[in-house]
């Protein structure tokens, strides 16, 4: 082997190593959409949750605040009791699988919410009963692709484009901005099958609870409606605490 050939061989070797290094670096920096989504679900999903939160509903002429305590088990069971204002105090909602019941103390009646009623707004907010019921893992319903990076709330984010895996998912596609370190979605747009923007979510602050990052101030907006939307403020949250089974029964609604 001549000296020139040796130099060329070494040069190619160095270049190959450099390219391989670059490629492996890029792979490490840009995980797949699915892996990001898995981490989002991992951060978001807890066996049980007990939370006290406020819903600030911006109406056309005034603003209304509703306070509630909720108990959640997995993605199928949840129980919510409204604590404030006095007019709504004692109103309860129970979700078991795909079914939802509400109880109002003033009428002492339990009503099953189903069909088109699920599309109605909860207490005048921008959230429908369906939105409140949604608690499935994103990875189960969507395939994800990384569309780029962006900065939200001063945090570096992955921008993911989600497409429903099956036709029976409520929102055919979503676009989410996921914090690259904390794996909390900081912004979300939900789209109809036609591609029309239907709902937007904007996280305003995030805090850490029991080692997980949780959005504690979120603004929801029905993109087809005018108005300032509805804010969701988390007062307290406890994760993976034992919740007795009787909480998730219709009998608990009248207690």
């Amino acid at each position: 082997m001549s000296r020139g050939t040796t130099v060329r061989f070494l040069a190619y070797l160095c270049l190959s190593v450099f390219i391989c290094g670059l490629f492996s670096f890029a792979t490490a920096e840009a995980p797949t959409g699915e892996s990001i989504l898995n981490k989002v679900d991992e951060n978001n999903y807890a066996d049980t949750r007990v939370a006290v939160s406020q819903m600030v509903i911006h109406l056309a002429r005034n603003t209304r605040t509703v306070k509630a305590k909720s108990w959640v088990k997995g993605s199928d069971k949840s129980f919510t009791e409204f604590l404030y204002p006095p007019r709504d105090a004692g109103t309860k909602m129970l979700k078991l699988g795909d079914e939802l019941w509400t109880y109002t103390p003033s009428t002492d009646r339990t009503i099953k919410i189903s069909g088109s009623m699920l599309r109605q707004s909860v207490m005048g907010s921008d959230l429908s009963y369906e939105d409140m019921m949604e608690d499935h893992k994103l990875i189960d319903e969507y395939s994800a692709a990384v569309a780029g990076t962006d900065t939200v709330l001063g945090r570096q984010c992955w921008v993911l484009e989600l497409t429903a895996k099956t036709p029976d998912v409520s929102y055919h596609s979503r676009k989410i901005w996921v914090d690259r370190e904390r794996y909390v979605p900081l912004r979300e747009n939900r789209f109809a099958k036609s591609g029309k923007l239907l709902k937007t979510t904007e996280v305003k602050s995030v805090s850490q609870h029991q080692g997980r990052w949780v959005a504690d101030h979120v603004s929801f907006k029905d993109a087809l409606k005018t108005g300032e939307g509805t804010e969701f403020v988390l007062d307290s949250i406890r994760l993976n605490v034992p919740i007795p089974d009787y909480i998730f029964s219709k009998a608990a609604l009248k207690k």
Partner: protein
Amino acid sequence: MTILKLAIRNLRGAGIRTWLNAVALSFAFVAIIFGQGMLQGMNKQVEDASTAFEFGGGQYWQNSYDPYDPLTLEDAHAPLPPVLDSLATAGKAAPILVVAGSMYPQGRLKPVLLKGISPVQKVIALPTAALGDTTEELPLLIGSRTAASTGLALGDQVTVQWRDADGAFDARDGRVVEIMHTSVGTVDIGQVWVPFATLQKLAGMEGEATIVTVAKGMRNTPVVEGWNFRTPGYLLSDLRQVVQAKSVGQTVMFSVLFLLAMLAIFDTQVLSVFRRRREIGMLVALGMTRARVIVLFTLEGALHSVLAVMLGTLYAGPLFIYLNRNGFTIPGMDTFGYALGDKLYPAYTAGLILGTTVLVFVVTTFVSWLPTRRIAKLNPTDALAGRGT
């Protein structure tokens, strides 16, 4: 005949008292005919309009469809059976697909029912042709009440949202291509009409329908498995019940009015028997039987009803004819919830007029007879002396 002549002479002799009774009775007579005529007119108008704009000659409902239970709507669609499809092709039926959705006029959410109907149908009187004479991707036909409540005008664009057959949200911008004026609120309020094929495609329900309305007058409607045929009588039964309920309320009111008129007749008769004891005694003394005297007094009372009918015909007849031809507007009539239109045209049928006349005559005769029973017990000697009542 002598008794009739005598009765007429006595009535004329009573002067103003006779006319007062006749006027009071005529008010009741006119009020009954006026009220019942209004109800009959209302009933006819509602049925005619509902048949023309909504029910046609009856409707086939998909098995799960229940218009009183919105929760059934999600599953209330099925492929159009060949027999109904061929009726539709022949222009004898209009299939309609119903999908629950929302509309966002001026950024406000309004729940609506999206109804897909063929633009070329002629089965019901909706101006659906406008849905076909356009190049719009999603043309919308709405009623004037929906237009008023949403602030939408002809040519306006509005976003419509719904869930498809699988449950996924979809939304499009539609354009109002026609605003129809109909007295039938059930095809207007909260309803948005779109082309049948477009809704089938957008909702992922190709070839499916919820309701099939058949043409008016169609006989021998076939039995179709999975679909229930509702006759016009069945579809109109609710409206008929409402009119019937109103009729009951009105009857109570008229009964009170009628009772007051009868009280006046009764009083007059009691007073007559009391004040005319000598006359009764004289008639009996002259050879008239007590029964004939009773007939005379009863006839006098009953003749009040004849006078009342004549009087009523005189002053209310022209009014009834005018109202029947020109109708009249009741403020807020549009909000009644019935297909009444702008004006109400009372219907005064021969049966109604004749029936009311007979009723007034029979009741007046009976009420006139009641006080005259005393005459049977009257001793002619005492009567002549002005005693014994």
